[in-house]
């Protein structure tokens, strides 16, 4: 019985993932690429070397966090398509404070993290405020704020005291501000000797391993706890399903909408902070378009069925196909855009739960009909 419930919950997701890859393969065949070799290269790009695997895990942190941000908003009945902008704000804050502030190791990162989360949270809360105060749909304002954040990013980037002209990037953030664990270690004498002794370790020492993944797991459990075990979480979940009934029960909907957009924004901001402080080259680069972490949060949340803990798994999964696709493009020559297509397909398949019910009822009906026939 329990097993059945379990299967029921995960079947649509598994089915969507499988169908996404399957239709993606058809698409590859149509366009003249070899799907089997492509997918195999993708797998190779994840599992063939410990370096790859650690890279997948490290890079899953920002993805899992933007996913968590969107999932949390979904649980509160809001669609946070503005995760991208909030992430960008996190990046901007991390760059400014990382380069200009002087604080001891550890403290520096914590200050950056909190500031990034607060500013990104405010960026998100604006969306909530405009929604409750003026009744503007959160999707529209969030998209506009994404673009405003992108241009803000470019504006900050143009500051002469931040910009390093000849490489078209900002200054590096200080060592004290970084969340990377291994970065630079391989360059030290100690690291060199260790790497020389052991090829396996040498491989790992080259990765961007950082605290990001631990922070992401921590955040996921914190959100899980907030939603399921606290009175505030009870309010937010009730609001997410039925605003009218929540209002009737005496809850302050307006405040809760702003609060949940703040929290959601703060989580996206954390993703931005980790991206900048945890991965080389530790500087802000000029952006022509969005990096896409925020938009990716949407499908990560959907695949996770909006469960906070599920976002970690979902983030790992998508980090894997992202990392794997890099090797695929190099080795097989299949463009990495195929993962965008696969993702789009997966979202489609997840969006149509009614279709599953329809199929299930049809199967049941034919079964019934055949039984009737037998009689």
């Amino acid at each position, binding site marked *: 019985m329990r097993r059945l419930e379990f299967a029921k919950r995960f079947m649509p997701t598994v089915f969507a993932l499988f169908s996404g890859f399957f239709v993606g393969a058809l698409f590859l065949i149509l366009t003249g690429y070899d799907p089997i070799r492509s997918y195999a290269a993708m797998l190779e790009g994840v599992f063939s070397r410990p370096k790859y695997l650690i890279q997948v895990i490290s890079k899953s942190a920002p993805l899992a966090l933007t996913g968590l941000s969107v999932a949390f908003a979904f649980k509160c009945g809001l669609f946070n398509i503005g995760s991208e902008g909030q992430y960008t704000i996190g990046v901007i804050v991390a760059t400014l404070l990382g380069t200009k502030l002087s604080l001891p190791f550890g403290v520096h990162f914590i200050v950056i993290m909190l500031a990034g989360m607060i500013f990104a949270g405010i960026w998100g809360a604006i969306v909530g405020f405009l929604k409750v105060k003026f009744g503007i749909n959160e999707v529209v304002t969030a998209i506009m704020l994404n673009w405003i954040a992108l241009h803000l990013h470019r504006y900050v980037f143009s500051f002469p005291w931040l910009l390093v002209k000849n490489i078209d990037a900002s200054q590096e953030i200080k060592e004290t501000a970084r969340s990377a664990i291994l970065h630079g270690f391989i360059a030290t004498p100690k690291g060199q000797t260790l790497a020389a002794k052991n090829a396996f370790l040498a491989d790992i020492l080259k990765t961007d391993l950082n605290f990001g993944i631990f922070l992401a797991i921590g955040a996921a459990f914190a959100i899980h706890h907030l939603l399921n*075990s*606290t*009175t*505030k979480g*009870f*309010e937010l*979940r*009730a609001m997410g*399903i*039925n605003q*009218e*009934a*929540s*209002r*009737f*029960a*005496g*809850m*302050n909907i307006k405040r809760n909408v702003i609060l949940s957009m703040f929290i959601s924004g703060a989580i996206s901001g954390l993703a931005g902070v980790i991206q900048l402080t945890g991965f080389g080259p530790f500087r802000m680069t000029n952006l022509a378009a969005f990096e896409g972490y925020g938009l990716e949060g949407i499908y990560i949340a959907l695949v996770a069925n909006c469960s906070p803990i599920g976002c970690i798994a979902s983030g790992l999964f998508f980090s894997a196909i992202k990392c794997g696709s890099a090797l695929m493009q190099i080795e097989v020559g299949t463009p990495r855009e195929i993962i965008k297509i696969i993702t789009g397909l997966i979202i489609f398949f997840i969006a149509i739960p009614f279709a599953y019910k329809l199929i299930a009822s049809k199967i049941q009906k034919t079964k019934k009909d055949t039984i009737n026939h037998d009689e």
Partner: protein
Amino acid sequence: MIEKEEQILTAPEEKIIAVSMVGIQKSFGNHLALKNVDFNVMQGTIHALLGENGAGKSTLMNILYGLHKQDTGSIFINGEPVAIKNPKVAIEHRIGMVHQHFMLVPTFTVAQNIMLGSELTKWLGVVDFKRANREILKLSCDYGLAIDTRKKIEDMSVGMQQRVEILKALYRGAEILILDEPTAVLTLQEVDELMKILRSLADAGKTIIVITHKLNEIKQVCDYCTIIRRGENILTVQVDAYSEQQLASMMVGRDIALTSEKKPINPKDTIFEVRDLVVDDDRGIRKVDGASFEVRGGEIFGIAGVDGNGQQELVEAITCLRKSKSGSVKMHGKELQNTTILNVIESGIAIIPEDRQRSGLVMKFSVEENMLLKRYKNPAFSNKGKLQKNKISRFANSLIEKLDIRPPNCAQLPVKKLSGGNQQKVVIAREMSSNPDLLIAVQPTRGLDVGAIEYVHKELIRQRDSGKAVLLISLELNEIMGVADKTAVIYNGKIAKILNTKETNEEEIGMLMTGGGNFACAD
């Protein structure tokens, strides 16, 4: 009981059977909505389809109009077998339907609504509004249904909207007209008006089927009546031959007590007081216009009235979900007006809202969570913002047991899996658990079956007998007459009169509900 033979309706020779539905069966999922139902209607008559909520009346008519498809059974129109697979086919067979929720686009004009789907066009699909207006006007004159074709639906009264619906059917040449609960939202005058219209349409040779559960209307205007109970048709009778009481007991399948058993009233001090309350709706139209009344402990205070006379705004203003313009709302002498709903709840008021699925329950939440909905901050259930799961589940289980909510052990079940009656029990359990001094019940029995209705009424009376106050707002006059100790009649946002329920009768209240009686003279 009535003899079985009467089920077969024998047609007088000069009359044709316009509609004949034979052996209709229909199920939704596992629920069998119609079991082998036969239904015959003679041309030029008004035929009532009588049954309780959920008996299957509307389903049967939706099948006739092609909105649902029957699983088995056949339909004959004027003796010809027909397959009505969608409303288009129904319209082609000259069947028209006036739905309970009007199928009118509020932002469109009368003419646009009437034309929709069968537009008069000039060239290239360009709508010929002039000719359409002319034809509709002619049609409305022919049947004596005067109407302004250029007016927008959202600016019209409910009665006029219904007129548009009837014209819509006639415009498509309907010979068979189905009306689903046509009087549910009308004032008494509008009802009278409608009855006259229906009579004249029948005299003009149209066949009319009226879905209803209002016995007096059947007696007033219908020729025949088919009674449906739990998806089965019980029998078809000539209306003249039976009394309302007889029809009623056939409808529910047993003798019904129209009044609930009550101990004599034992009123205490005034608990709740509304003075000169004025409330506007979203469009700035005055909906409550200086209403005043007070509710004492140990009494059930009923507010009767036709829908749309300010009841909704009154409740919203009392619960602070809507700002009132002036006046006062006092609980235990403390002013509540224009504060917050939280303040209202904390002052000892509990509310059974009109639409339990929309306002009363979070349908995807478990029964337990729904019981917690208003009390999650109570120190008994939370400690420094953390929910105390053990205590909560003990509390929920005790309520489930006490109110006999079915199925047993449903604490963790999503509330949407419960039946309507049990859902309402969850609401009642939650609202009563805070031991309120005043219980406001708005249409508390809407959509419930007879057993559940009796249960709700008993709960209201129990609350009263324990010395607490009850404010009952209902559109069902029977409910008010049966349960309330005092009855206030609301008309046009004003309290027309407050009466002792025992000393009045349905006629007097009915008059007041439509602006008649003493009140109208002063107007």
